[in-house]
């Protein structure tokens, strides 16, 4: 598994996600947003968390139009994997890789805490290392993670099984109380139609070492490396 982690001006989780990928056995190239091409042999493009362009205009809007995003869209169109985490999810939506948009949290507060997620399906390249129906414990840290889209798109996401993760309580119940930002349907992450692009607000790369309180994030990176090995 060869991963290209893109650094935009204001990205700040590129180092952490690279560490998580290497821990899972991937090789990692760091790629600058102004580059035209991805390294030859790139299997996975990672749009990391942070505050690209200081969240100017809309979160992810300017990064979504960066030069490297043309190559990223071509990579995704050819079935290549793309993972957008937090600001990377916002960038993926703004770049047209995923539908909908992430807007200000319903209660206007920046939320930074541990959060349980329900893994909606485990037959994807991003989640195969998790168990069916598993609830995972990861971190969230965002001010604009409130996922919205039009009714038609929501019906398609739900009907086609494109919801990847939902916010839930410790017992796996998806409730309004467990929803930290007002997202439609408690959506924490979604797939593209081909399930080769995943965007999610939570940070799985934060929980990859028991030393910092948990390892539930490892499964996502292990799944990706396993998907490449199986291919």
């Amino acid at each position: 598994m060869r991963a290209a982690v893109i650094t935009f001006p204001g990205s700040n989780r590129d180092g952490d996600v690279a560490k998580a990928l290497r821990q899972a056995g991937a090789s990692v190239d760091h790629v600058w947003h102004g580059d035209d091409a991805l390294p030859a042999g790139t299997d996975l493009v990672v749009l990391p968390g942070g505050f690209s362009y200081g969240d100017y205009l809309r979160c992810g809007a300017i990064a979504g139009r960066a030069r490297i995003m043309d190559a990223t869209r071509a990579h995704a169109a050819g079935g290549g994997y793309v993972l957008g985490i937090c600001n990377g999810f916002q960038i993926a939506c703004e770049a047209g890789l995923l539908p909908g948009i992430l807007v200000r949290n319903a209660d206007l507060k920046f939320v930074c805490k541990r959060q349980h997620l329900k893994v909606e399906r485990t037959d994807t390249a991003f989640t195969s290392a998790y168990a069916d129906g598993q609830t995972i414990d990861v971190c969230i840290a965002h001010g604009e993670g409130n996922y919205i889209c039009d009714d038609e798109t929501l019906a398609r996401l739900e009907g086609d099984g494109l919801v990847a993760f939902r916010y839930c309580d410790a017992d796996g119940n998806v409730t309004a109380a467990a929803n930290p930002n007002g997202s439609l349907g408690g959506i924490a992450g979604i797939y593209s139609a081909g399930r080769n692009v995943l965007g999610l607000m939570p940070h799985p790369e934060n929980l990859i070492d028991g030393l910092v309180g948990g390892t539930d994030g490892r499964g996502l990176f292990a799944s990706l490396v396993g998907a490449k090995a199986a291919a």
Partner: protein
Amino acid sequence: MKARVTVTLKTGVLDPQGKAIEGALKSLGIDGVGSVRQGKVFDIELDGSDHAAAEAALQAACEKLLANTVIENYRVEIGA
């Protein structure tokens, strides 16, 4: 030429920032405030004097970057 692009949230899209501003205005005792919706204004200087070309360029600017049409509407006004 000078132009002004105004980007506003579509009807029905929740605007928690507008709501907070609305609450602050009311708490300041400013009378008659029904509701507040927050938007964005871009003042743009354009080269040339071709009105139609400017209109087309600004339309493209809105569609490609200035507005996200999932949640926003935009209006273009071109001055002298």
